[in-house]
């Protein structure tokens, strides 16, 4: 048996040793998927570089490490979670905190927001929203060839559930704060489901933070259903430390004439892998997928995007940008799949990267598979340095070289940030990006909990 399958075996053992505990704490409906999922995981294993979509990302350092398994939070975790305050003071949002993948309150596990929106614990929601969950849970990851998605289905106990009824427009965004905090090295998985029914309009902000310096690995899956004519926006902001591994899988299923955007902003993290899937499952659906990452030291950030044009007259747009310093590495893999019947498809993709040193490295791979003939498709990729002409232009107006470089990098990043509709968050992101570029942003810079 070689090392890679031994590694997968270890996670299977973790499952076997803990499935009883997991099942006791989870709803029967979530449990009903576990066995099939672990079998699927056993077939696929932990992805290696042989797996085409992980070709540029080495998971070894995080998956080979030993973690103390973590299946239930303690009372002190709840306290930490309650103490946490997001310091984006102008951000007026409906907040939910997840601690190590759990919804950390004992009472009020489901909350009702204006317009009959429900937010709360995924595990808890299966009673109240049985029908909806049966309709959507685990429906949008089918056939996914990433073993980690199935490992999540097999073992995740909790996460966030959001239900937005038909026609409801929520003006304030919903903010999910994912905290990871422990005195031990932990591996945590959470599973979320967001259902945005027909004609609804909602924005969800997800913030990923680490609050203690231990080694962490997170493997999270979010399924999102965007109903006919609905507008949905999800923004993920990642600010974790260099000893944290973060793997996210977001699956968006879009119905006819729906509009959905995703935006992954990675400010900090040891190893980050975001895979974002947009399934355009009805005529006239439109998706936009944005991403920005700033990486330095030994950080590695990988964005994998998959846009599936299954119906005619759908539009998609991808814009991903990265700034890499020191010996940081990055990867972008953008897939556009246009099915045979998806005539009238319009699909764009752009990936631009700036390498600030000779040691930084970026691998970028567009992957277009087009089986329809009436299609407008384009993609463009650049990996380069800061533009000398632009630098000189700024300097010639009296701006010092250091400042001019910062302005150019900021401008480069702002092209992604400017797509955030929530003004307070957009300003805050601009601010954080600037701090990050100046080297002033530490992992604790916007966290109220003073740890280690």
């Amino acid at each position, binding site marked *: 048996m070689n090392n890679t399958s031994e590694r997968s075996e270890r996670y299977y053992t973790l499952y076997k040793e803990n499935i009883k505990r997991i099942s006791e704490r989870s709803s029967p409906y979530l449990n009903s998927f576990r066995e099939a999922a672990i079998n699927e995981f056993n077939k696929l294993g932990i992805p290696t570089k042989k797996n085409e979509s992980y070709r540029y990302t080495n998971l070894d350092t995080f998956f080979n490490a030993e973690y103390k398994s973590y299946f239930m939070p303690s009372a002190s975790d709840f306290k930490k979670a309650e103490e946490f305050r997001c310091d984006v003071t102008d951000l007026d949002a409906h907040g939910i905190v997840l601690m190590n993948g759990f919804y950390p309150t004992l009472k009020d596990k489901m909350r009702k927001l204006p317009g009959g929106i429900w937010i709360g614990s995924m595990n808890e929601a299966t009673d109240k929203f049985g029908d909806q969950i049966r309709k959507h849970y685990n429906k949008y990851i089918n056939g996914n060839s990433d073993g980690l998605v199935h490992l999540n289905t097999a073992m995740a106990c909790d996460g966030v559930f959001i239900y937005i009824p038909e026609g409801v427009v929520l003006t304030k965004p919903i903010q999910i704060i994912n905290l990871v905090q422990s005195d031990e090295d932990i591996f945590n998985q959470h599973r979320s489901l967001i259902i945005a029914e027909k004609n609804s309009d909602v924005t969800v902000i997800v913030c990923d933070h680490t609050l203690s310096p231990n080694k962490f690995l997170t493997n999270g899956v979010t399924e999102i259903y965007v109903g006919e004519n609905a507008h949905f926006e999800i923004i993920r902001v990642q600010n974790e430390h260099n000893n944290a591994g973060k793997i996210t899988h977001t699956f968006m299923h879009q119905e006819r004439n729906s509009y959905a955007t995703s935006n992954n902003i990675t400010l900090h993290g040891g190893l980050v892998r975001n895979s974002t899937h947009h399934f355009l499952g009805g005529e006239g659906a439109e998706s936009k997928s944005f991403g920005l990452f700033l990486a330095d030291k030994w950080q590695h950030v990988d964005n994998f995007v998959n846009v599936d044009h299954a119906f005619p007259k759908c539009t998609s747009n991808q814009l991903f940008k990265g700034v890499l310093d020191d010996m940081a590495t990055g990867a972008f893999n953008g897939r556009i799949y246009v099915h045979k019947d998806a005539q009238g498809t319009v699909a764009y993709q752009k990936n631009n990267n700036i390498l600030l040193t000779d040691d930084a490295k970026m691998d970028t791979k567009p992957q277009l598979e087009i089986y329809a003939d009436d299609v407008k498709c384009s993609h463009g990729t650049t990996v380069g340095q800061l533009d000398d002409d632009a630098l*000189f*232009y700024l*300097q*010639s107006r*009296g701006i010092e070289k250091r*400042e001019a470089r910062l*302005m*150019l990098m900021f401008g480069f990043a702002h*092209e992604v940030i*400017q797509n955030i509709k929530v003004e307070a968050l957009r300003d805050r992101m601009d601010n954080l990006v600037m701090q990050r570029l100046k080297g002033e942003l530490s992992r604790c810079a916007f966290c109220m909990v003073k740890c280690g």
Partner: protein
Amino acid sequence: MLIIKNLKAEINGKAILKGISLEVKAGEVHAIMGPNGSGKSTLAAVLAGRELVKVTEGSVTYFGKNLLEMPPEERSKEGIFLGFQYPIEIPGVSMVNFMKTAVNEHRKYMGLEPLSASDFLKMMREKKELVEIDSKLANRSVNEGFSGGEKKKNEIFQMAMLEPKLAILDETDSGLDIDALRIVANGVNKLKRPETSAIVITHYQRLLDFIVPDVVHVLYDGRIVKTAGKELALELEEKGYDWIKKEVDKKDMA
């Protein structure tokens, strides 16, 4: 104000400027004309501090200081302004932020406090009117999506904001229709003070109908081959550059 002595410069090992001498006194407007490829833009680039151009010989003295030793930003703060022939598009950097940073860097250099937000916006408004620039342009990214004429107007707008002592306008007239040309030239004239100078690099005489030079130089093959008053521009307009080329080539043969 500016004394250039026997200036020689190359780009990627190719000699472009082959010994230029020129003196610009306070208050003067010099026009530099010449056929394509004669080195006009290279001269502008050397004066603004472009690293791409390597000076191999000669000196440039500006208010008694060695200009060639200063980085581009310092030259700007000392009052040199280059109006680009091809202004650069910088996506994601707003005009407001760009100009605010530039103006405040200049003020810091002069030992002044940064402008308050309201004073700065007031200044922007005034200068925008001066060059008849669409006020919406100021809210956009630097030159991004601007038309050719808008880009040139934007150069003059920046010049108005920075109030240089020596403006070097590199083919500011190229690509402009007659109305835009008039606006750009009017802007330059309105900004002219008795003690400020300008070097106007142009291919055609028509800009000099609006910005009247004191001296006209003809640059050919990296050298100034003729210097005269403003009537030289008219002569060039009428007869083209060929007669000058012939004159120079004949001299070289001899």
